[in-house]
Each structure stands twice: as C-alpha cells, then as structure tokens.
C-alpha cells in the first residue's frame, strides 16, 4: 500500500511530539506531549491494520504509562534533580543517538519489500488453534509460552514495586494517600478519561465482530479504567497483605501453567487438543486477563504507603 499524505502527517506529528517530549524544558509538558504521542501512535497502529496493538498502546502505552509518569512527577516535585554531567554530554548524546538511529534507518530501508512474515502459517493453523483472532491465537496458543512468561514478568515487577515500600508501610494499601497533593494530577487525568472510554467503546464493537479473541487485550483497557476510578478516590485499593488479592494475582499464571503442565502426561507442554482448545483457551484467557489487569492496576498504584497519621 502506498503511503498517503495522512500517513506522512501522522509520522511527522509523531516525531514532533517525541521531540517535544524528549527535549522540552518543562517535565509536566513533556509528559503531556508523551500522552498525546501515545494516542497518535494508536492512530498509526490503526493505519497499519493492527487494531489489537492500537488498543493496547492506547490503554497501556499512553494511558497507564502516562498516569504513572504524571503520578511520579506529582510526588517527586523538585526532588527530581539532575546529576551534574559534563558539558559535551549533549553533543555526544546527539552523535550516539543519531548514529544508532541512522543505522536502524539504514536497516529498515534495506529490508526486502515483500516479506510476509508468518501470516500464512498463522492463518493456516488458525482453525486448529481454537480461536478466531489470529493475534490471540499467537498470544495464547502458538506463542503462549511467551505470554505465560510475560504474565510472570508483570508479577515480578509488582513484587519489585512492593519491595521498595518503606518498612513501616508494609501491609498497608498501595497508592498515593488521597489527601496528599493529588488534585492537580487527577484533574489532568480527567481530561483523558473520555478519550479512553471512547477507545473502549470502539473495542467492544470490534471484539463482537471478530470472535472471542479480544478479551486479553480488553482486560488491559479495563485495568486502565479501574485505575482511574481508584485514583479518583471512588474505591479504595486493597491492602497488599490481603489474602484474596494475592491468590487473585497468581490465579491467572497459575492456571495457565497448570494447564500447560497437564500436557506433560501426553508428552508435550502447553498443548490444547483441538477438541477442547476453544473452551480451554477462553477459560485461561478470562482468568489470565483478570490477573494481568489486576497486576497492572497495582503496578500503577505503586508500593504500599504508610497509613496517614
């Protein structure tokens, strides 16, 4: 497909937003540019026919990451100081960044123009995979092992986030204490809430049309909404020591791993016999999605805090 003017405009805007986010003097504005950049890149994903990625990027890339960065900015304030670095550092950074970027550019334009990747193979086995959405087929069946490990990565990051809690904060609720200075930040979230809601709407329409495959990607969107609800003070996050919370966190990866291990009785790992592939994958998808969404929520909320005095 030939690039249209729209494509080029999107790309130019993307680069400009990135430039502003990277070089701007003011950190808050840089983060806002970053969030705009995230929404723009979702548009780019739609243009290259990757709706699943567009959703994930909007919800996670722009939404959750933006929330994280804004929250961090709100709490750091002036504490986020720069280390002193030598004068020539900017110049060297420019050379190194441009050098690596040029190498990548050189590589991209050298790629064969008709590489189709594994599209044909995936479509040929889609029937056997038990799901209708090829992306989900790859995520949960063909390369389900990656997804299993990814869900563990999330858990590890969560444990890591929790582990930097203050000693006195252990066992408390995660997240910023509400009557701390959260107001300014929350207001800016408010502005993006409708945008994200819109994406959710679009998603639901799409998911209905293309089979049961979208729940995984959808879970991430739900997580984004849940976080905003908590941050807005409507719901309290549970304490990190809550038993149900911990079981819910490990339930998804646990069930996935358990089902995968069942295959060992037949001499294989992570297999879904075609007869049960559909129900098995849907079941795993739901549990895994719930766990991943919950993990995402807690990741963004941060370590448990000391109880307000």
């Amino acid at each position, binding site marked *: 497909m030939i690039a249209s003017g729209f494509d080029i405009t999107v790309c130019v805007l993307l680069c400009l937003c990135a430039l502003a986010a990277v070089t701007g003097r003011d950190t808050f504005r840089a983060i806002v540019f970053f969030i705009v950049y995230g929404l723009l890149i979702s548009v780019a994903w739609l243009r290259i026919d990757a709706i699943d990625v567009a959703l994930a990027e909007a919800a996670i890339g722009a939404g959750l990451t933006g929330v994280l960065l804004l929250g961090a900015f709100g709490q750091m304030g002036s504490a986020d100081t720069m280390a002193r*670095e*030598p004068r020539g*550092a900017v110049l*060297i*950074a420019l*050379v*190194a*960044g441009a*050098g*690596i970027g040029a*190498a990548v550019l050189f590589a991209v334009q050298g790629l064969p123009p008709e590489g189709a990747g594994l599209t044909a193979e995936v479509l040929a086995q889609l029937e056997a995979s038990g799901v209708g959405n090829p992306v989900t087929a790859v995520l949960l069946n063909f390369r389900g092992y990656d997804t299993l490990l990814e869900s563990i990565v999330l858990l590890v990051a969560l444990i890591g986030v929790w582990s930097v809690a203050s000693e006195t904060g252990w066992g408390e609720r995660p997240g910023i204490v509400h009557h701390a200075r959260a107001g300014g930040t929350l207001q800016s979230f408010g502005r993006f809430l409708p945008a994200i809601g819109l994406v959710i709407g679009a998603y639901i329409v799409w998911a209905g049309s293309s089979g049961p495959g979208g729940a995984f990607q959808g879970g991430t969107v739900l997580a984004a909404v849940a976080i905003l609800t908590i941050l807005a003070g409507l719901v309290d996050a549970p304490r990190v020591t809550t038993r149900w919370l911990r079981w819910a966190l490990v339930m998804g990866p646990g069930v996935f791993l358990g089902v995968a291990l069942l295959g060992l009785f037949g001499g294989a790992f992570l297999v879904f016999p075609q007869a049960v592939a559909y129900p098995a994958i849907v079941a795993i998808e739901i549990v895994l999605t719930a766990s991943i969404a919950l993990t995402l929520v807690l990741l963004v909320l941060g370590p448990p805090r000391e109880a307000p005095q």
Partner: protein
Amino acid sequence: MTLPGLTHVLLEGPFLPLAALIWPLVLGLLAALPRLRAHVMMALPLAPIPALILALSGAVSGQTRAPDLLLGVALGLDAEGALLLGAIGALWLLAGIHALGYMKRPDRPAVFVGFWCLTLAGNLGVVLAQDVVTFYVAFAAVSLAAYFLVVHEGTDEALAAGKVYIVLAVIGEALLLAGLMVGASSADSLLIADVRAVLGADGWNGLALTAIVLAMGIKAGLVPLHIWLPLAHPAAPTPASAVLSGAIVKAGIIGLLRFVPGDAEVMGWTLVVLGLFGAYGGVIVGLGQKRIKAVLAYSTVSQMGVVIALCGAGVVTGQTALAYSAAALYCAHHALAKGALFLAVGVAHGSSARLIPFVVIATGVVAASVAGAPLAGGAIAKSVIKPAFEGIPLLLVTLSAIGTTALLARFIVMLGRSHSAMSNAEPGLAMAGAWLAASVGALVLPWLVGGAFMANEASYYLAPGALWSSLWPVGVGLAGFALVLKFVRLRIWFAEGDIAPWVVAGARRGAHVIAHRRRLAPPSLPGVSSAPLRRLVSRIEAGLALPVMAGLAMMAMIAAIVLFR
C-alpha cells in the same frame, strides 16, 4: 561401578604411579576431618609410602595414563626417576617422622598436614609426570602449597619470607604455563619428550624455553632468582626446611633436566655460567651468615649451582644423557644429605650439651660427604658429574669443593654451639632416628645404586689417585677455614637473602611510583593504596556510569560490527 571397573575406565597402565600421587592427597583431605584431628600428624610418615614402594620396585616400562583426569594424565618412571623418587620420598618420610617429635602440639595441625601432603604429592608428581599438563599441575602444587609450610610459624619473619616466596612462585607459575603452552602447541603434543624437542628451535620456542628455564630457576635457586631460598628455609619449621632444601628445590632441577634440549647451546652456556656463579657466590655469602639455617640454605644455593652448571654442561658438551644420570645421582645424594643436615639442627636444639658432641661428629661425616671427602657417598656423586665438564668449568667445579668444605665447616662449628640450654634435653627417638637414617642413607645410597650411574667400577674410587683427588680440596677447605677461624675475626655479614631486601625495596618503590606518581608515602605491597590513583579511577568509573558514555560505547560497537565485516 566396581573399583576395578572404575580404574579400567579412568586408567590405562599400572596403577601404582597414580596411587603414589593420590594417596597423599587422600591423607591430606582426611586431615581436614575434625574427628581425626588428634591423630592427624600420623599422616606425615604414611604419605610417601606408596611412592617409596614404587621407587623400590624400580623403573616402570610404558606409561600410566588417566585420560579422564586433568585433560589426560600420563605418568612414567625411568631408572633416574626411580632413584630421585626414592631419595625424595625417603626424605619426606624421614622429615615426617622427625616432625612427629619436633612438633608435638603444632598450631593448626590440619592446615600443616594438609599442605604438607599436597606439597608432597606435587613433588612426587614432578618426578612422575610425562606430559606437560601433569607436570604443570604438580609443579604448581609443590610450589604454591609449600608457601603454607614456609609461613607456618606465623611470625613476622615467616610472613615476610612467605611474601617473597609466593610472589616469585606465582610469577614462576605464569612463566611455566606460558612456556609449556607455546611448546605444546608448536610440538602438537602434550608429551614432555615431544615438547622438549621443539623448545628453543626458533623465536617463540626460544622464548618458551627461556620462560621455562626461568620458572625452574626460581625453584632451583638459580642466581639471581634464588632470593626466596635463604629467606624461606630458615623461616620454616625444621622438618619443612629439610624438605624445602632437600626435596622441593629438586623440582626445578628435574624441570631443567627434562626440558632443556640438547641443541640449546646458548642456554647451556648460560646455565654453566650462572650455575658456577651460584656455586661460588653461595659459599661466599653463606660464610657471612649469622644463623645456622641460613648457612645451610646458602649451601643449597651453592650445591644447586653445581647441578645447574651440570645441566648446562651436558648440553654444551653434547652429553645430555650422561648429565641426566649424573645429576640424578648427585641430587639423590644431596636430598638425603641436606635433609640430614637440617634435621641435625632440630636434633641439636633438642640435645643437651652433653649429647651435642655425638651430633656434631655424626653430622660432620655427612657434611664431609657433601664436600666430597673420600669414601663417602658424596665423593661418588662428585666423580660421576665430572665427566660432563671439561676445561675451565671442570677446574671450577673441582675447586668449588674447597668452598663447600669451608662453608660446611662453619655450619658444624655453629651446630656445636646450638644445643639446648637444659642439661637433660634429649631429642627423642623420632627426631634422632629420622636424622640418623637420613645420614646413613646419604652415605651409603650412592654406593648402593651407583653401579648404574658410574662410568667406572667401584674399585676405581678406592684407588689412591681417586682418593687423593677427592681428598685434597676438602683438606684445603678445612685448613683454610681453620686458619681464618684462628687468625681473622669474620666481620663481614651478609643479609639473609643477600639482594632480596633491595629487590623488595625496589618493587615497593616501583609500585609506589606507579601509585603516587610523585608524592611519597610508605606504601605496602601488593595492596597498592593510593589516594590520587583512587580518585582517578573513581572519576573514570563515574564517567562510565553516565548513560551518554554507555550510549557512545554501544554506538561504536555497532559501527565496528557493521562496518568492519
């Protein structure tokens, strides 16, 4: 897996050579068991037993191979090896027995016994090794483990001596490894015989030969690499001094004999010159020593100088086989004799003034043997080595007996004064028995085994001409020493380790200059402590921690990989 099955898998050829090496290692490990701590010293005399059995059963035809160990171990024993193995093993046995009496309640016995056994295994391994890897491993074991014998007393003196020792030993290891690797890769074989054939052939192999000779020279006390020797021998406990001086230095001699090829004429001459220099220098500096064990240590430097010159002469005159046999006999005699002299020091310290004359007389006989007095074993050893020399070196070797006599006379005089202050002191059966056995062994061993190594019939040595030629240097030496003792008061004292203090000071100074650039402050070696250097590296480290530097490095890597393809 049953034991025969296991040995079949691991081992091809006779089992005894491998057992001779493994047995002391097993004993050394057992010494670490807390439950056996009370009896741990018993391991010392037990450890060399299989080696002695092997030596007594004589040369082994063919090789013992253990292909699964250490990249393939090859062991073997020729007649000369059997002689050396027997003498070295016997000395370790006797020193071990002596130690039972000498160290009734040693400090940290498990450490001493463990490293004693490890050193012993290495020492035996050097004799038995037929491939360069086994030789290197054994040499490293004997070199590095002996450090713990040197520093065992834990005194400042012992620790300082140990420091010099370990620095030289580690440098020797690296030199040896480099030399062997170069030789092995250019010979395309790991067998010592093959490696020897290519050493010295061209540029790199010449360097390899030099590296190996330096490594061996450090161990054998080749001047000027000998500086650890007069420091370490007096610092160690007496039984350890005995094996250090009698057995461990032989590891270097064996290496020279095994590796210096017959066509390396320049190296041969170098060894002759340095060896003779050591033979005389050792005497001169030794005469100026205040402590009895230092005198003996310089005697070892001198004696090893003679053997090193012998190795060189064999190369120069094209008689390497003769030199090999002769050196084996000479070393076997020296091992037992020097062992006996060191053990005599221990015995003397444990004897009352009443007993000391017996000690002095018996030791005097051994000393005379070392000097080459007629009828003693040493005379045979001396006469065996002479055919390898010719011209001026021959004369110098003959004359060196004068110096040896004088030096050992000084030792005997000092021995007479070093008895115990207690009037009822007795050395005890273990100490005295081991010493006497070593003395007798030194006197008779050459007579017993000499047949295979002598160019002449035994009766030749009883002929008047031969007797005279071995008698007069001893007489001259004794007379000279007596004259000096009578009319001149010795006023010249040499520091132990002669040039060692300067070398150490120089090394400190060098490290100091590197560390401080210009500013002067007392440094310590090898821990270079220096504020400016520290500041410099911490600035470098901080710079490298910057993301921008990391990014630059990564970009450079990518560029190199893509552009230089």
